């Protein structure tokens, strides 16, 4: 059973890696909250969240994203905690390539939000490097306000959209 799970995981991950456009990876971009729907890959391919080596575990148990205050790219204590756990996991699961997506809420102009999303992604990348994750496994991409995860005109939605998501794909060490 463990073997089956791993095989499914790899197949799914290869499928993801074959998409050259990271917004197809789904997790933080076009997909639903915490899920990987947009790429046509459902959660079963990502392993069980109870398997600590699975992508599902990384996304759901460790937490694949951190949030920011309005206009800010500073990492909160909570964010640092999440990223510290991410860094440990990423070092133990060295086969994954990493794309860090930076996002903004819609309360800003398009260009500024692209630049702001890049700042946020970079802040996460720098923190992960400081925690020992190899820089050459990581790339950043900013989506500005192009891919909100929650759609409403209230702060409750904006707060969830001001995020940086660590998205995994098979490839770095494979």
């Amino acid at each position, binding site marked *: 059973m463990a073997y089956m799970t791993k095989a499914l995981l790899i197949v799914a991950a290869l499928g993801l890696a074959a998409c*050259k*456009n*990271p*917004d197809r990876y789904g997790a933080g971009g*076009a997909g639903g909250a915490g899920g990987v729907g*947009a790429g046509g890959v459902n959660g079963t391919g990502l392993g069980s969240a109870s398997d600590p080596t699975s992508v599902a575990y990384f996304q759901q148990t460790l937490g694949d994203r951190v949030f920011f205050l309005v*206009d800010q*790219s500073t990492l909160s204590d909570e964010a640092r905690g999440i990223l510290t756990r991410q860094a440990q996991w990423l070092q133990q699961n060295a086969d994954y390539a990493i794309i860090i997506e930076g996002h903004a809420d*819609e*309360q*800003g*102009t*398009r*260009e*500024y939000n*692209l*630049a*702001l999303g*890049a*700042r*946020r*992604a*970079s*802040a996460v*990348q*720098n923190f992960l490097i400081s925690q020992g994750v190899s820089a050459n496994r990581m*790339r*950043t*991409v*900013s*989506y500005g306000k*192009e*891919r*909100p*995860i*929650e*759609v*409403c*005109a209230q702060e409750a939605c904006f707060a969830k959209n001001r995020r940086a998501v660590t998205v995994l794909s098979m490839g770095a060490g494979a």
Partner: protein
Amino acid sequence: MSRLRHIFTAAVAAATIGAGALVSTPAEARLTITLGTPVIEPMPFALPTFVDEGGAGGLAAEISAVVAGDLIGTGLFEQIPQNAYIQQVSSFDAAVSYPDWQAINAQALITGAVQAGGGQVAVKFCLHDVFANGTLGECMQFAGDQGSWRRVAHKVADAVYSRITGEGGYFDSRVVFVAESGPKNQRQKRLAVMDYDGANVNYLTDSSSIVLAPRFSPTGDRILFTSYSSGFPQIYLMDVNSLQIRSLGEQPGTMTFAPRFSPDGRKVVFSLERGGNSDIYLLDIGSGGLTQLTNAPSIETAPSFSPDGSEIVFESDRSGGQQIYIMSASGGEPRRISGGAGRYGTPVWSPRGDYIAFTKQNQGRFHIGVMLTDGTEEKLLTSSYLDEGPTWAPNGRVIMFTRQPPGEGSPQLWTVDTSGRVLRPVQTETAASDPAWSPLLP
């Protein structure tokens, strides 16, 4: 896409025509609208349906409607309904009975005739200064391919607008924009071009990648835009006729965005992000030479050239929030021009050189506004949940922008004149954002 090429290259020929007894020079032109004055009462005009002089059929009425629609859309003119007309115009060459038009208080009268055949359409028109009992300027004819009849109509309206205001028109122009579909968290975006009034939409890309903020070259033959086609935001250059796209010097590990042409069309000013920091760069399209214009740890973006090419206006958050700055086109120390409460972004230099249009955020509202290039005389023209991304009409008198309603609502394009009085939505067949106006077509 042959239709697209057709639209961009179709020549519309103009000629003045002798109108015999119709031509008389009024002693004193009364038909004048001075733009930029605080309050302008709409000028009443009459426009009898243009006469079919052969082969035009319903096209005569359609052309008449486009001419009238252009004028009414400015907010500077109002049309007197045709059922009020006393004189019935059944021949273009018939003498105009000015008292009949004076009696219904038509200040301007536009008469015209349409001929169509062999794939061509020709439109004659005269602009009459009713209370001066004569024409204002010579009667003219515009001719072109029948497929571009809307362009011919826009040419007529531009001529009328131009004679009465003394300024250049803007109706015979195109707008490149982003056509949007799908839910907000999975929005599909395509580049598209349309006439300024939303007609004749052509799609330039499919929706396989996010595309953002297209910009026309100064001659309208090329388009700069930002695309995620590589997986990462990068700027690209599209040739409008061939639709060929080329990358502008992608450097791995960087993001490039917010491109605009220099006034001579040879250079591109844009933002390049590296390591989380965005600065402004200048790329020589021919040589590929890259010059860094700003070097600061803050966000520098949304650059726009002055019409003479000597300066660049841009936004920066170096002071803590977004504000507008102007620097030399070769870089150097910028001067801040915005100073009011709130945040200022997306500055765009007017083609007239006088104003900077911008997006302002203050107290949870977004505004499109204008200010002089020294930052004085700030005027907010709009207010909504989310207005952004102004673009100037070729004559610098009207601004188009994106208005996004809250929640799941779809963005739409709107226009506002620089007085702020005339605010209108642009009718588009899909949701739309990020408009950029072309120059006036030749």
